[in-house]
């Protein structure tokens, strides 16, 4: 065959190129232009004037953030909630998948699976609305604790208030509840791909259920766990905004103000666009470092990573 020039090949696949470029143009406008907009983190941008006219201020906004007396508190909230979700919330779907896998009745298993996906499909607004009502002093949770005799009627508390004493716990439990079944899907899929002969051989050798779980199932899904763990670590700076925005209020602000909430409040409520962008950029950079670090570690330890 005769070799064609690149230009001729391009012309031949012009329709495909057009399709690809539609996507590239979208990415340029909605992903790359905002990335370029990050320059306002180094300027003093006012909405009334353009980005170009705004004067440069260097790292002033970053310094302001680090010097902010809220800084350590905000970092503690962001990382505290994320660490709880990582240490306690991350293993739960794995345990759930392992236990669900032991259920032999197929109809029951299907039913449990379907029911466990339900919370994933409920919006954070609806769930937040339910939680706000339930955690009220006269809500279901207090009713339950009083009925169980944990404390009397005088002990009723507004769990979303109290200076946010319970906020991290509420964030952890509600998030775990919402995504338990959904996050188990991938593990269940990985488990169903394991060669059944290994289990048969183990049974012949007299291995019990726990032994099979620890010596066959878990090692077989190690790669999946590692990849999802890398993603979870890299997402640590991203608190679940929808969730926290819904559940935070002035009474729990000291424990609920995470970076994302701070960005929103400073940017949208106070109008400090440049400062808020700087805080957001700081967050993205830390997240990127976490991703690279977690991926390298995972590749060394388990051989699996994102790339």
């Amino acid at each position, binding site marked *: 065959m005769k070799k064609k020039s690149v230009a001729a090949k391009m012309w031949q696949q012009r329709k495909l190129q057009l399709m690809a470029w539609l996507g590239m143009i979208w990415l340029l406008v909605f992903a790359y232009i905002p990335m370029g907009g990050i320059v306002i983190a180094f300027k003093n941008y006012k909405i009334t004037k353009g980005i170009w006219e705004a004067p440069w201020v260097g790292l002033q906004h970053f310094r302001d953030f680090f010097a902010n007396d809220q800084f350590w508190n905000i970092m503690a909230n962001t990382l505290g909630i994320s660490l709880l979700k990582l240490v306690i919330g991350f293993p739960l779907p794995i345990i759930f998948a392992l236990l669900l896998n032991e259920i032999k009745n197929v109809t029951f298993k299907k039913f449990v699976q379907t029911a466990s996906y339900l919370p994933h*499909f409920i919006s954070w607004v609806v769930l937040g609305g339910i939680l706000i009502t339930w955690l009220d002093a006269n809500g279901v949770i207090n009713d339950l604790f009083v009925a169980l005799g944990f404390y009397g009627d005088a002990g009723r508390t507004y769990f979303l208030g109290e200076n946010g004493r319970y906020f991290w716990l509420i964030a952890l439990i509600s998030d775990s509840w919402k995504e338990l079944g959904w996050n188990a899907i991938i593990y269940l899929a990985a488990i169903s791909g394991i060669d059944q002969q290994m289990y048969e051989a183990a049974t012949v050798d007299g291995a019990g259920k726990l032994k099979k779980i620890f010596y066959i199932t878990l090692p077989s899904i190690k790669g999946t766990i590692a990849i999802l763990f890398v993603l979870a670590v890299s997402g640590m700076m991203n608190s679940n905004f929808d969730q926290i925005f819904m559940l935070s209020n002035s009474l729990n602000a000291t424990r609920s103000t995470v970076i994302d909430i701070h960005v929103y409040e400073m940017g949208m409520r106070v109008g400090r666009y440049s400062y808020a962008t700087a805080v957001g950029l700081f967050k993205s950079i830390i997240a990127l470092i976490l991703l690279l670090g977690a991926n390298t570690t995972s590749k060394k330890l388990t051989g699996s990573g994102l790339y």
Partner: protein
Amino acid sequence: MKRKNAEEFSGPKVKSSTGSRIFDGINIVFMIFICFLCIYPIWYVIVNSLNDAKDAMSGGIYWWPRVFSLGSYKRVFAESGLLQSFRVTIMKTLIGTVLSVLFTALVGYALSKKYLIGRGFYMAVGTITMFFGGGLIPTFILYKSLGLYDNFLVFIIPAMFSFYNMLIMISFFRELPPSLEESARIDGAGDFTVFFRIVLPLSKPVLATIALFNGVYQWNDYFAGVMYTQSKSLEPIQTYLYRIIATAQSSQMATTAVNVATTTTSTSIKLATMVITTVPIMCVYPFLQKYFVKGMMIGAVKE
């Protein structure tokens, strides 16, 4: 076939030990408990919304309506602003989902071709956006300068493409038998014809998965409404709900003397709206289960 083997195997061929039976028993009880935890909150909202609003204010309704009434739902449908919000949500879900699925699939089809010149570059351009973005404020400024602020299109255009969903689609397109496409090309079909006539109809499972992801996002999202709209007529139902909840909470905290009748009305509207927004998804997702499970699996492999 595989599943059958698994069932045969896990059946109690060997007499199961007492320990194993105790484990199974506890496991079943535990699973029933999980089901209860997942279903009960919605059940609670449903029974409370079906109770007379004034009576429901005194609390204590856990399992069944005490004074049955459809008053809350009548109230919802009498509220014109609320109906408008429902219209916005339905429109953005339908238009947003269809456009996003088609557009993402179209780009994905082109990028699924190994011989596409510049493919590596295009993939790199997209991959970067999965790990780094401009953030809230630059995005807000962009939408404002594009005239998307307080415009219905703000729900549609920024949600029209997703690189991650595209990756899922690409791995599906790759699995399609190439013979169908080849024979269509021999008959003189161009890329667009092949895409619309051959690839799309064959890709229903992955399109359904992505449509479900998009549909749920569009239906449930409240933040775009909070962030990018101002007019009441553009407020999606979840944003409307968010506003009722936020207002009720702040007025409660301010302990201002709120009119009891107002509180009752807003609570009853809140409950009924929660049910109306949640029930459609509840009715749909069990039937799409096999699709989204597959979609999640492709996604996991792709990662």
